[in-house]
Protein backbone atom coordinates (compact mmCIF):
# COMPACT_ATOMS: atom_id res chain seq x y z
CA UNK A 1 0.00 0.00 0.00
CA UNK A 2 2.68 2.31 1.21
CA UNK A 3 4.70 1.57 -1.91
CA UNK A 4 1.93 2.93 -4.11
CA UNK A 5 1.78 6.34 -2.54
CA UNK A 6 5.48 6.71 -2.12
CA UNK A 7 6.17 7.92 -5.66
CA UNK A 8 3.38 10.49 -5.40
CA UNK A 9 4.69 11.67 -2.09
CA UNK A 10 8.16 11.88 -3.51
CA UNK A 11 7.01 13.99 -6.45
CA UNK A 12 5.09 16.29 -4.14
CA UNK A 13 8.14 16.68 -1.97
CA UNK A 14 10.30 17.40 -5.01
CA UNK A 15 7.86 20.11 -6.07
CA UNK A 16 8.02 22.02 -2.81
CA UNK A 17 11.64 21.26 -1.96
CA UNK A 18 13.23 24.31 -3.64
CA UNK A 19 10.73 26.60 -1.97
CA UNK A 20 12.31 25.76 1.35
CA UNK A 21 15.11 28.22 0.70
CA UNK A 22 15.97 31.06 -1.61
CA UNK A 23 19.58 29.98 -1.64
CA UNK A 24 20.34 29.85 -5.33
CA UNK A 25 23.31 27.56 -4.82
CA UNK A 26 20.98 25.02 -3.29
CA UNK A 27 18.83 25.39 -6.38
CA UNK A 28 21.88 24.85 -8.54
CA UNK A 29 22.56 21.60 -6.74
CA UNK A 30 18.96 20.56 -7.27
CA UNK A 31 19.27 21.15 -10.99
CA UNK A 32 22.41 19.03 -11.13
CA UNK A 33 20.63 16.36 -9.15
CA UNK A 34 17.72 16.25 -11.58
CA UNK A 35 19.88 16.30 -14.70
CA UNK A 36 22.07 13.55 -13.34
CA UNK A 37 18.95 11.64 -12.34
CA UNK A 38 17.73 11.77 -15.90
CA UNK A 39 21.11 10.68 -17.11
CA UNK A 40 21.38 7.86 -14.57
CA UNK A 41 17.85 6.66 -15.29
CA UNK A 42 18.73 6.47 -18.94
CA UNK A 43 21.88 4.47 -18.29
CA UNK A 44 19.83 2.26 -16.01
CA UNK A 45 17.89 1.06 -19.03
CA UNK A 46 21.07 -0.48 -20.35
CA UNK A 47 22.76 -1.49 -17.13
CA UNK A 48 19.73 -2.36 -15.07
CA UNK A 49 17.26 -3.69 -17.58
CA UNK A 50 19.15 -5.33 -20.40
CA UNK A 51 22.06 -6.08 -18.13
CA UNK A 52 24.98 -4.84 -20.18
CA UNK A 53 27.44 -2.44 -18.68
CA UNK A 54 27.85 0.55 -20.94
CA UNK A 55 30.85 2.58 -19.92
CA UNK A 56 30.66 5.25 -22.55
CA UNK A 57 27.32 6.73 -21.65
CA UNK A 58 28.81 10.13 -20.88
CA UNK A 59 29.59 10.46 -24.59
CA UNK A 60 25.90 10.62 -25.42
CA UNK A 61 25.32 13.19 -22.73
CA UNK A 62 28.08 15.16 -24.39
CA UNK A 63 26.73 14.64 -27.89
CA UNK A 64 23.39 16.00 -26.76
CA UNK A 65 25.04 18.96 -25.09
CA UNK A 66 27.16 19.80 -28.12
CA UNK A 67 24.26 19.34 -30.50
CA UNK A 68 22.19 21.85 -28.58
CA UNK A 69 25.12 24.24 -28.22
CA UNK A 70 26.21 24.08 -31.84
CA UNK A 71 22.70 24.29 -33.24
CA UNK A 72 22.02 27.25 -31.02
CA UNK A 73 25.29 29.10 -31.63
CA UNK A 74 25.91 28.39 -35.29
CA UNK A 75 22.44 28.05 -36.69
CA UNK A 76 20.36 30.07 -34.28
CA UNK A 77 18.31 26.97 -33.57
CA UNK A 78 15.74 27.75 -30.87
CA UNK A 79 16.06 26.02 -27.50
CA UNK A 80 13.22 23.56 -27.19
CA UNK A 81 13.32 22.08 -30.68
CA UNK A 82 17.05 21.98 -30.02
CA UNK A 83 16.43 19.64 -27.09
CA UNK A 84 14.52 17.35 -29.39
CA UNK A 85 17.31 17.47 -31.95
CA UNK A 86 19.83 16.70 -29.23
CA UNK A 87 17.84 13.61 -28.35
CA UNK A 88 17.59 12.58 -31.97
CA UNK A 89 21.26 13.10 -32.71
CA UNK A 90 22.37 11.28 -29.55
CA UNK A 91 19.90 8.50 -30.30
CA UNK A 92 21.22 8.25 -33.85
CA UNK A 93 24.75 7.89 -32.53
CA UNK A 94 23.36 5.37 -30.08
CA UNK A 95 21.82 3.46 -32.94
CA UNK A 96 25.03 3.29 -34.93
CA UNK A 97 27.22 2.45 -31.96
CA UNK A 98 24.71 0.04 -30.52
CA UNK A 99 24.36 -1.62 -33.89
CA UNK A 100 28.05 -2.40 -33.81
CA UNK A 101 28.68 -2.92 -30.11
CA UNK A 102 25.62 -4.91 -29.08
CA UNK A 103 26.76 -7.89 -31.05
CA UNK A 104 29.25 -8.33 -28.30
CA UNK A 105 28.51 -8.84 -24.65
CA UNK A 106 30.04 -9.00 -21.22
CA UNK A 107 33.43 -7.51 -20.46
CA UNK A 108 34.13 -7.00 -24.13
CA UNK A 109 31.06 -4.82 -24.38
CA UNK A 110 32.28 -2.79 -21.42
CA UNK A 111 35.56 -2.08 -23.15
CA UNK A 112 33.94 -1.51 -26.50
CA UNK A 113 31.66 1.18 -25.11
CA UNK A 114 34.59 2.67 -23.24
CA UNK A 115 36.38 2.73 -26.58
CA UNK A 116 33.55 4.43 -28.42
CA UNK A 117 33.25 6.93 -25.61
CA UNK A 118 36.96 7.70 -25.81
CA UNK A 119 36.87 8.07 -29.56
CA UNK A 120 34.04 10.57 -29.32
CA UNK A 121 35.90 12.36 -26.54
CA UNK A 122 39.08 12.57 -28.62
CA UNK A 123 37.20 13.68 -31.70
CA UNK A 124 35.50 16.43 -29.76
CA UNK A 125 38.87 17.57 -28.54
CA UNK A 126 40.38 17.70 -31.99
CA UNK A 127 37.56 18.80 -34.25
CA UNK A 128 38.23 22.36 -33.29
CA UNK A 129 36.33 23.91 -36.16
CA UNK A 130 33.10 22.39 -35.00
CA UNK A 131 33.51 21.98 -31.26
CA UNK A 132 36.16 24.60 -30.44
CA UNK A 133 38.27 21.77 -29.04
CA UNK A 134 39.25 21.53 -25.40
CA UNK A 135 38.19 25.03 -24.50
CA UNK A 136 34.63 24.13 -25.27
CA UNK A 137 31.71 26.31 -26.18
CA UNK A 138 30.71 29.05 -23.80
CA UNK A 139 28.00 31.68 -23.78
CA UNK A 140 25.34 29.20 -24.78
CA UNK A 141 21.96 30.90 -24.76
CA UNK A 142 19.51 29.87 -22.09
CA UNK A 143 16.60 27.72 -23.13
CA UNK A 144 13.73 29.65 -24.56
CA UNK A 145 11.33 30.22 -27.38
CA UNK A 146 12.17 33.60 -28.81
CA UNK A 147 12.31 36.52 -26.44
CA UNK A 148 8.96 35.91 -24.85
CA UNK A 149 9.75 33.02 -22.64
CA UNK A 150 13.11 32.03 -21.39
CA UNK A 151 14.33 29.83 -18.59
CA UNK A 152 16.43 32.20 -16.57
CA UNK A 153 16.87 30.91 -13.05
CA UNK A 154 18.07 27.65 -11.64
CA UNK A 155 14.54 27.11 -10.41
CA UNK A 156 13.18 27.14 -13.94
CA UNK A 157 15.67 24.51 -14.96
CA UNK A 158 14.89 22.52 -11.88
CA UNK A 159 11.21 22.30 -12.69
CA UNK A 160 11.86 21.51 -16.32
CA UNK A 161 14.23 18.70 -15.49
CA UNK A 162 12.01 17.47 -12.67
CA UNK A 163 9.19 17.22 -15.15
CA UNK A 164 11.33 15.17 -17.48
CA UNK A 165 12.58 12.95 -14.67
CA UNK A 166 9.07 12.23 -13.48
CA UNK A 167 7.83 11.55 -17.00
CA UNK A 168 10.75 9.32 -17.82
CA UNK A 169 10.59 7.49 -14.50
CA UNK A 170 6.94 6.81 -15.12
CA UNK A 171 7.73 5.61 -18.63
CA UNK A 172 10.33 3.25 -17.21
CA UNK A 173 7.86 2.02 -14.66
CA UNK A 174 5.27 1.37 -17.37
CA UNK A 175 7.94 -0.25 -19.50
CA UNK A 176 8.71 -2.77 -16.83
CA UNK A 177 5.06 -3.73 -16.67
CA UNK A 178 4.85 -4.26 -20.39
CA UNK A 179 5.67 -7.00 -22.80
CA UNK A 180 8.70 -5.03 -24.00
CA UNK A 181 9.95 -4.69 -20.45
CA UNK A 182 9.59 -8.40 -19.88
CA UNK A 183 11.66 -8.95 -22.99
CA UNK A 184 14.37 -6.64 -21.59
CA UNK A 185 14.53 -8.59 -18.37
CA UNK A 186 14.44 -11.90 -20.19
CA UNK A 187 17.42 -10.83 -22.27
CA UNK A 188 19.25 -9.74 -19.14
CA UNK A 189 18.58 -12.92 -17.23
CA UNK A 190 19.14 -15.49 -19.93
CA UNK A 191 19.52 -14.42 -23.53
CA UNK A 192 19.50 -17.94 -24.90
CA UNK A 193 16.22 -18.76 -23.21
CA UNK A 194 14.79 -15.41 -24.24
CA UNK A 195 15.57 -16.18 -27.87
CA UNK A 196 13.93 -19.57 -27.56
CA UNK A 197 10.79 -17.74 -26.45
CA UNK A 198 10.76 -15.57 -29.53
CA UNK A 199 12.58 -12.48 -28.28
CA UNK A 200 14.85 -10.93 -30.88
CA UNK A 201 17.72 -10.37 -28.51
CA UNK A 202 19.69 -7.98 -30.67
CA UNK A 203 16.76 -5.77 -31.58
CA UNK A 204 15.60 -5.65 -28.00
CA UNK A 205 19.01 -4.55 -26.82
CA UNK A 206 19.27 -2.02 -29.61
CA UNK A 207 15.91 -0.54 -28.72
CA UNK A 208 17.00 -0.14 -25.12
CA UNK A 209 20.29 1.36 -26.18
CA UNK A 210 18.73 3.92 -28.50
CA UNK A 211 16.15 5.02 -25.95
CA UNK A 212 18.81 5.34 -23.29
CA UNK A 213 21.20 7.32 -25.45
CA UNK A 214 18.49 9.62 -26.74
CA UNK A 215 17.39 10.50 -23.23
CA UNK A 216 21.01 11.06 -22.21
CA UNK A 217 21.26 13.45 -25.13
CA UNK A 218 18.30 15.46 -23.92
CA UNK A 219 19.77 15.63 -20.44
CA UNK A 220 23.03 16.85 -21.94
CA UNK A 221 21.27 19.54 -23.95
CA UNK A 222 19.59 20.96 -20.88
CA UNK A 223 22.88 20.79 -19.03
CA UNK A 224 24.55 22.85 -21.76
CA UNK A 225 21.84 25.50 -21.77
CA UNK A 226 21.80 25.64 -18.02
CA UNK A 227 25.55 25.93 -17.43
CA UNK A 228 25.93 28.01 -20.61
CA UNK A 229 29.24 26.29 -21.21
CA UNK A 230 30.16 22.88 -22.43
CA UNK A 231 33.59 21.31 -22.81
CA UNK A 232 34.73 17.83 -23.77
CA UNK A 233 35.34 17.21 -20.08
CA UNK A 234 31.73 15.99 -19.69
CA UNK A 235 32.66 13.01 -21.83
CA UNK A 236 35.79 12.19 -19.89
CA UNK A 237 36.43 9.09 -17.87
CA UNK A 238 35.45 10.96 -14.71
CA UNK A 239 31.92 11.44 -15.94
CA UNK A 240 31.70 7.92 -17.34
CA UNK A 241 32.53 6.60 -13.91
CA UNK A 242 30.28 9.07 -12.13
CA UNK A 243 27.15 7.93 -13.97
CA UNK A 244 27.92 4.31 -13.25
CA UNK A 245 28.37 5.13 -9.60
CA UNK A 246 24.98 6.77 -9.50
CA UNK A 247 23.23 3.82 -11.09
CA UNK A 248 24.92 1.06 -9.16
CA UNK A 249 25.21 2.72 -5.76
CA UNK A 250 21.57 3.75 -6.00
CA UNK A 251 20.38 0.38 -7.19
CA UNK A 252 20.45 -0.81 -10.76
CA UNK A 253 17.30 -2.13 -12.30
CA UNK A 254 15.11 0.03 -10.10
CA UNK A 255 13.61 3.43 -10.63
CA UNK A 256 14.29 5.03 -7.29
CA UNK A 257 17.88 3.75 -7.37
CA UNK A 258 19.43 5.96 -10.03
CA UNK A 259 17.62 9.03 -8.69
CA UNK A 260 18.85 8.27 -5.22
CA UNK A 261 22.30 7.57 -6.62
CA UNK A 262 22.39 10.96 -8.32
CA UNK A 263 21.33 12.59 -5.07
CA UNK A 264 24.07 10.84 -3.16
CA UNK A 265 26.62 11.74 -5.78
CA UNK A 266 25.77 15.44 -5.85
CA UNK A 267 24.91 15.75 -2.19
CA UNK A 268 27.72 13.77 -0.68
CA UNK A 269 30.42 15.45 -2.72
CA UNK A 270 28.95 18.79 -1.69
CA UNK A 271 28.83 17.91 1.98
CA UNK A 272 32.37 16.64 1.83
CA UNK A 273 33.71 19.94 0.54
CA UNK A 274 34.26 20.86 4.14
CA UNK A 275 36.77 18.06 4.51
CA UNK A 276 39.18 19.69 2.07
CA UNK A 277 41.93 17.43 0.87
CA UNK A 278 40.20 14.42 2.38
CA UNK A 279 37.13 14.95 0.24
CA UNK A 280 37.73 12.44 -2.50
CA UNK A 281 39.29 9.92 -0.14
CA UNK A 282 36.25 9.92 2.10
CA UNK A 283 33.98 9.82 -0.89
CA UNK A 284 35.78 6.81 -2.30
CA UNK A 285 35.78 5.10 1.08
CA UNK A 286 32.05 5.61 1.55
CA UNK A 287 31.48 4.44 -1.99
CA UNK A 288 33.30 1.17 -1.48
CA UNK A 289 31.79 0.58 1.92
CA UNK A 290 28.33 1.06 0.49
CA UNK A 291 29.04 -1.32 -2.36
CA UNK A 292 30.39 -3.97 -0.04
CA UNK A 293 27.61 -3.74 2.50
CA UNK A 294 24.75 -2.94 0.16
CA UNK A 295 25.62 -4.76 -3.04
CA UNK A 296 22.07 -4.28 -4.28
CA UNK A 297 22.36 -0.53 -3.95
CA UNK A 298 20.81 1.88 -1.52
CA UNK A 299 17.29 0.91 -2.51
CA UNK A 300 17.93 -2.54 -1.14
CA UNK A 301 17.89 -0.94 2.30
CA UNK A 302 14.27 -0.08 1.74
CA UNK A 303 13.58 -3.56 0.49
CA UNK A 304 15.12 -5.11 3.54
CA UNK A 305 12.73 -3.11 5.59
CA UNK A 306 9.77 -3.63 3.27
CA UNK A 307 10.31 -7.35 2.96
CA UNK A 308 9.57 -7.81 6.57
CA UNK A 309 6.26 -6.05 6.48
CA UNK A 310 4.79 -6.97 3.13
CA UNK A 311 4.65 -9.94 0.88
CA UNK A 312 6.33 -9.16 -2.36
CA UNK A 313 3.99 -9.57 -5.28
CA UNK A 314 5.30 -11.20 -8.37
CA UNK A 315 4.95 -7.95 -10.21
CA UNK A 316 7.04 -6.02 -7.74
CA UNK A 317 9.63 -8.71 -7.90
CA UNK A 318 9.93 -8.19 -11.59
CA UNK A 319 10.39 -4.48 -11.35
CA UNK A 320 12.89 -4.86 -8.60
CA UNK A 321 14.68 -7.85 -10.01
CA UNK A 322 18.36 -7.48 -10.41
CA UNK A 323 19.22 -6.83 -6.84
Amino acid sequence: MMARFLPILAVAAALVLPLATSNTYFHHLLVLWMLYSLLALSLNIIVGYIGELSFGHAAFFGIGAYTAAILGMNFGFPGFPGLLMAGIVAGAFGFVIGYVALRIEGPQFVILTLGFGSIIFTTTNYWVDLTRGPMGISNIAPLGVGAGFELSSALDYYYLSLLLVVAFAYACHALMLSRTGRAFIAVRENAQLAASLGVDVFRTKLLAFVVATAVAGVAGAIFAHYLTVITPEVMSLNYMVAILIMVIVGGRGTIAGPILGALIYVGLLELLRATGALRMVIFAALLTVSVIFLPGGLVSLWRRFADRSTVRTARQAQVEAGE
Partner: protein
Amino acid sequence: MTILSVNTLTKKFGGLTAVSDVDFEVQPGEILGIIGPNGAGKTTLFNMLAGSMQPTSGTVHLKGQNITGMRADRIARLGVARTFQITSLFPALSAHDNVRAATYRTKKTGWMASIFRTATYRAEEADVDRDAMAALHFCDLAGHADDNAESLSYGDQRRLEIAIALAAKPALLLLDEPAAGMNPEEGQRLVNMIRKIRDNGTSVLLVEHHMRVVMGVCDRVVVLDHGEKIAEGTPAAVVDNPDVIRVYLGREAVSA
Protein backbone atom coordinates in the same frame (compact mmCIF):
# COMPACT_ATOMS: atom_id res chain seq x y z
CA MET B 1 -0.33 -31.06 -42.92
CA THR B 2 2.97 -32.32 -41.54
CA ILE B 3 4.13 -30.16 -38.65
CA LEU B 4 7.80 -30.91 -38.88
CA SER B 5 9.77 -32.58 -41.58
CA VAL B 6 13.48 -33.23 -41.27
CA ASN B 7 15.52 -34.25 -44.30
CA THR B 8 19.07 -35.61 -44.34
CA LEU B 9 20.01 -33.36 -41.47
CA THR B 10 23.70 -33.46 -40.57
CA LYS B 11 25.90 -31.76 -38.02
CA LYS B 12 29.65 -32.07 -37.83
CA PHE B 13 31.94 -30.81 -35.09
CA GLY B 14 35.35 -30.85 -36.62
CA GLY B 15 35.98 -34.50 -37.37
CA LEU B 16 33.01 -35.72 -35.34
CA THR B 17 29.68 -36.22 -37.05
CA ALA B 18 27.19 -35.72 -34.23
CA VAL B 19 24.09 -36.03 -36.41
CA SER B 20 24.27 -37.83 -39.69
CA ASP B 21 21.67 -37.78 -42.50
CA VAL B 22 18.67 -37.99 -40.21
CA ASP B 23 15.14 -37.96 -41.68
CA PHE B 24 11.80 -38.02 -39.92
CA GLU B 25 8.44 -36.29 -39.75
CA VAL B 26 6.08 -35.22 -37.03
CA GLN B 27 2.34 -35.14 -37.68
CA PRO B 28 -0.12 -32.79 -35.99
CA GLY B 29 -1.08 -34.04 -32.56
CA GLU B 30 1.68 -36.62 -32.57
CA ILE B 31 4.13 -37.38 -29.78
CA LEU B 32 7.40 -38.53 -31.27
CA GLY B 33 10.07 -39.94 -29.00
CA ILE B 34 13.77 -39.72 -29.75
CA ILE B 35 16.01 -42.07 -27.87
CA GLY B 36 19.54 -43.24 -28.16
CA PRO B 37 22.68 -43.72 -26.14
CA ASN B 38 24.56 -40.84 -24.55
CA GLY B 39 26.24 -38.77 -27.17
CA ALA B 40 24.02 -40.10 -29.95
CA GLY B 41 23.21 -36.61 -31.14
CA LYS B 42 19.74 -36.03 -29.72
CA THR B 43 20.43 -32.68 -28.13
CA THR B 44 22.38 -31.59 -31.17
CA LEU B 45 19.38 -32.45 -33.29
CA PHE B 46 17.15 -30.38 -31.02
CA ASN B 47 19.52 -27.47 -31.20
CA MET B 48 19.33 -27.50 -34.96
CA LEU B 49 15.54 -27.73 -34.98
CA ALA B 50 15.23 -24.82 -32.59
CA GLY B 51 17.76 -22.66 -34.38
CA SER B 52 20.43 -22.51 -31.71
CA MET B 53 22.84 -24.40 -33.95
CA GLN B 54 23.38 -24.24 -37.69
CA PRO B 55 23.13 -27.59 -39.46
CA THR B 56 26.08 -28.63 -41.60
CA SER B 57 23.66 -29.87 -44.26
CA GLY B 58 20.07 -31.01 -44.71
CA THR B 59 16.79 -29.19 -44.28
CA VAL B 60 14.11 -28.61 -41.70
CA HIS B 61 10.57 -27.63 -42.64
CA LEU B 62 7.98 -26.39 -40.20
CA LYS B 63 4.42 -26.62 -41.52
CA GLY B 64 5.85 -26.61 -45.01
CA GLN B 65 8.06 -23.56 -44.43
CA ASN B 66 11.80 -24.01 -44.73
CA ILE B 67 13.32 -23.01 -41.39
CA THR B 68 16.77 -24.47 -41.93
CA GLY B 69 19.37 -22.32 -40.23
CA MET B 70 16.86 -19.71 -39.14
CA ARG B 71 17.60 -17.76 -35.96
CA ALA B 72 16.21 -19.19 -32.73
CA ASP B 73 13.89 -16.29 -32.00
CA ARG B 74 12.32 -16.41 -35.44
CA ILE B 75 11.70 -20.13 -35.18
CA ALA B 76 10.19 -19.54 -31.76
CA ARG B 77 7.87 -16.93 -33.20
CA LEU B 78 6.72 -19.52 -35.73
CA GLY B 79 5.45 -21.58 -32.82
CA VAL B 80 8.27 -23.82 -31.63
CA ALA B 81 9.06 -24.00 -27.91
CA ARG B 82 11.73 -26.03 -26.23
CA THR B 83 13.26 -27.02 -22.94
CA PHE B 84 16.98 -27.42 -22.45
CA GLN B 85 18.74 -30.53 -21.24
CA ILE B 86 20.94 -28.43 -18.96
CA THR B 87 18.37 -26.45 -17.02
CA SER B 88 17.92 -22.98 -18.45
CA LEU B 89 15.76 -20.50 -16.56
CA PHE B 90 15.66 -16.85 -15.55
CA PRO B 91 17.33 -17.60 -12.23
CA ALA B 92 16.78 -14.32 -10.42
CA LEU B 93 13.11 -14.04 -11.32
CA SER B 94 10.19 -15.61 -9.50
CA ALA B 95 8.65 -18.70 -10.99
CA HIS B 96 5.64 -16.63 -11.94
CA ASP B 97 7.74 -14.06 -13.78
CA ASN B 98 9.64 -16.82 -15.52
CA VAL B 99 6.43 -18.02 -17.01
CA ARG B 100 5.07 -14.56 -17.73
CA ALA B 101 8.12 -13.84 -19.85
CA ALA B 102 7.20 -16.85 -21.93
CA THR B 103 3.98 -15.27 -23.13
CA TYR B 104 6.00 -12.88 -25.27
CA ARG B 105 5.29 -14.56 -28.55
CA THR B 106 1.54 -14.61 -28.37
CA LYS B 107 1.04 -11.03 -27.17
CA LYS B 108 1.15 -7.84 -29.13
CA THR B 109 0.93 -4.62 -27.15
CA GLY B 110 4.03 -2.49 -26.80
CA TRP B 111 5.54 -0.06 -24.39
CA MET B 112 3.46 2.91 -25.50
CA ALA B 113 0.24 1.10 -24.71
CA SER B 114 1.53 0.41 -21.22
CA ILE B 115 2.32 4.07 -20.65
CA PHE B 116 -1.22 5.07 -21.48
CA ARG B 117 -2.71 1.98 -19.90
CA THR B 118 -4.99 1.33 -22.81
CA ALA B 119 -7.83 -1.13 -22.51
CA THR B 120 -6.07 -3.62 -24.79
CA TYR B 121 -3.03 -3.37 -22.62
CA ARG B 122 -4.96 -4.10 -19.45
CA ALA B 123 -6.83 -6.95 -21.02
CA GLU B 124 -3.65 -8.48 -22.32
CA GLU B 125 -1.85 -8.16 -19.03
CA ALA B 126 -4.73 -9.94 -17.35
CA ASP B 127 -4.32 -12.69 -19.94
CA VAL B 128 -0.60 -12.90 -19.27
CA ASP B 129 -1.18 -13.33 -15.56
CA ARG B 130 -3.86 -15.90 -16.11
CA ASP B 131 -1.91 -17.90 -18.68
CA ALA B 132 1.12 -17.87 -16.47
CA MET B 133 -0.76 -19.06 -13.42
CA ALA B 134 -2.44 -21.73 -15.51
CA ALA B 135 0.90 -23.03 -16.72
CA LEU B 136 2.23 -23.11 -13.16
CA HIS B 137 -0.85 -24.99 -11.97
CA PHE B 138 -0.50 -27.37 -14.81
CA CYS B 139 3.02 -28.20 -13.70
CA ASP B 140 2.20 -28.36 -9.99
CA LEU B 141 4.20 -25.26 -9.24
CA ALA B 142 1.48 -22.88 -8.13
CA GLY B 143 2.79 -23.10 -4.59
CA HIS B 144 6.18 -21.86 -5.73
CA ALA B 145 4.91 -18.96 -7.83
CA ASP B 146 6.71 -16.32 -5.79
CA ASP B 147 9.93 -18.26 -5.24
CA ASN B 148 12.97 -17.32 -7.24
CA ALA B 149 13.75 -19.90 -9.89
CA GLU B 150 17.25 -20.42 -8.55
CA SER B 151 15.95 -21.34 -5.13
CA LEU B 152 13.82 -24.20 -6.46
CA SER B 153 14.99 -27.75 -6.11
CA TYR B 154 16.32 -29.43 -9.23
CA GLY B 155 13.14 -31.32 -10.00
CA ASP B 156 11.03 -28.22 -9.54
CA GLN B 157 13.33 -26.32 -11.86
CA ARG B 158 12.84 -28.96 -14.51
CA ARG B 159 9.08 -28.61 -14.21
CA LEU B 160 9.34 -24.85 -14.33
CA GLU B 161 11.09 -25.20 -17.65
CA ILE B 162 8.17 -27.17 -18.98
CA ALA B 163 5.78 -24.55 -17.67
CA ILE B 164 7.73 -21.87 -19.53
CA ALA B 165 7.62 -23.80 -22.76
CA LEU B 166 3.91 -24.39 -22.31
CA ALA B 167 3.10 -20.78 -21.64
CA ALA B 168 4.54 -20.00 -25.04
CA LYS B 169 1.55 -21.92 -26.47
CA PRO B 170 3.61 -23.67 -29.11
CA ALA B 171 2.41 -25.69 -32.05
CA LEU B 172 5.46 -27.87 -31.63
CA LEU B 173 7.09 -28.57 -28.28
CA LEU B 174 10.61 -29.93 -27.96
CA LEU B 175 11.30 -31.56 -24.59
CA ASP B 176 14.88 -32.59 -23.81
CA GLU B 177 14.82 -35.14 -20.98
CA PRO B 178 11.94 -33.60 -19.05
CA ALA B 179 11.81 -36.52 -16.60
CA ALA B 180 15.43 -36.17 -15.55
CA GLY B 181 15.41 -35.68 -11.80
CA MET B 182 11.94 -37.07 -11.32
CA ASN B 183 11.07 -40.27 -9.55
CA PRO B 184 8.87 -42.90 -11.19
CA GLU B 185 5.75 -41.50 -9.59
CA GLU B 186 6.57 -38.01 -10.78
CA GLY B 187 7.42 -39.45 -14.17
CA GLN B 188 3.94 -40.89 -14.31
CA ARG B 189 2.46 -37.48 -13.64
CA LEU B 190 4.63 -36.09 -16.41
CA VAL B 191 3.22 -38.67 -18.81
CA ASN B 192 -0.27 -37.46 -18.03
CA MET B 193 0.83 -33.88 -18.47
CA ILE B 194 2.36 -34.49 -21.88
CA ARG B 195 -0.79 -36.24 -23.00
CA LYS B 196 -2.85 -33.27 -21.96
CA ILE B 197 -0.52 -30.95 -23.84
CA ARG B 198 -1.02 -33.01 -26.95
CA ASP B 199 -4.77 -33.05 -26.41
CA ASN B 200 -4.67 -29.27 -26.51
CA GLY B 201 -3.33 -29.56 -30.05
CA THR B 202 0.42 -29.34 -29.59
CA SER B 203 2.76 -31.78 -31.27
CA VAL B 204 5.57 -33.01 -29.07
CA LEU B 205 9.08 -34.15 -29.74
CA LEU B 206 10.46 -35.89 -26.68
CA VAL B 207 14.01 -36.90 -25.84
CA GLU B 208 14.01 -39.10 -22.78
CA HIS B 209 15.96 -41.87 -21.12
CA HIS B 210 13.18 -42.95 -18.74
CA MET B 211 11.74 -45.79 -20.74
CA ARG B 212 8.53 -45.83 -18.75
CA VAL B 213 7.83 -42.31 -19.84
CA VAL B 214 8.76 -43.05 -23.45
CA MET B 215 6.65 -46.16 -23.53
CA GLY B 216 3.78 -44.47 -21.78
CA VAL B 217 3.39 -41.47 -23.98
CA CYS B 218 5.02 -41.75 -27.41
CA ASP B 219 3.09 -42.62 -30.54
CA ARG B 220 6.26 -43.33 -32.41
CA VAL B 221 9.94 -43.53 -31.53
CA VAL B 222 13.08 -42.71 -33.52
CA VAL B 223 16.32 -44.26 -32.31
CA LEU B 224 19.67 -42.56 -32.92
CA ASP B 225 23.10 -44.02 -32.48
CA HIS B 226 26.31 -42.21 -33.34
CA GLY B 227 24.21 -39.60 -35.07
CA GLU B 228 22.45 -42.07 -37.33
CA LYS B 229 18.87 -43.23 -37.25
CA ILE B 230 19.01 -46.95 -36.50
CA ALA B 231 15.35 -47.65 -35.90
CA GLU B 232 11.93 -46.07 -36.09
CA GLY B 233 8.50 -47.41 -35.13
CA THR B 234 6.03 -47.86 -32.33
CA PRO B 235 7.51 -47.99 -28.85
CA ALA B 236 6.68 -51.66 -28.54
CA ALA B 237 8.42 -52.50 -31.79
CA VAL B 238 11.47 -50.43 -30.98
CA VAL B 239 12.14 -51.95 -27.57
CA ASP B 240 12.16 -55.37 -29.13
CA ASN B 241 14.69 -54.36 -31.76
CA PRO B 242 17.91 -56.23 -30.95
CA ASP B 243 20.11 -53.32 -32.10
CA VAL B 244 18.30 -51.01 -29.78
CA ILE B 245 18.66 -53.43 -26.92
CA ARG B 246 22.33 -53.83 -27.62
CA VAL B 247 23.35 -50.20 -27.90
CA TYR B 248 20.80 -48.55 -25.68
CA LEU B 249 18.57 -50.56 -23.41
CA GLY B 250 20.84 -53.21 -22.03
CA ARG B 251 19.28 -55.21 -19.20
CA GLU B 252 16.64 -52.63 -18.45
CA ALA B 253 14.78 -53.75 -21.55
CA VAL B 254 13.71 -56.63 -19.42
CA SER B 255 13.04 -54.79 -16.19
CA ALA B 256 11.18 -51.84 -17.77
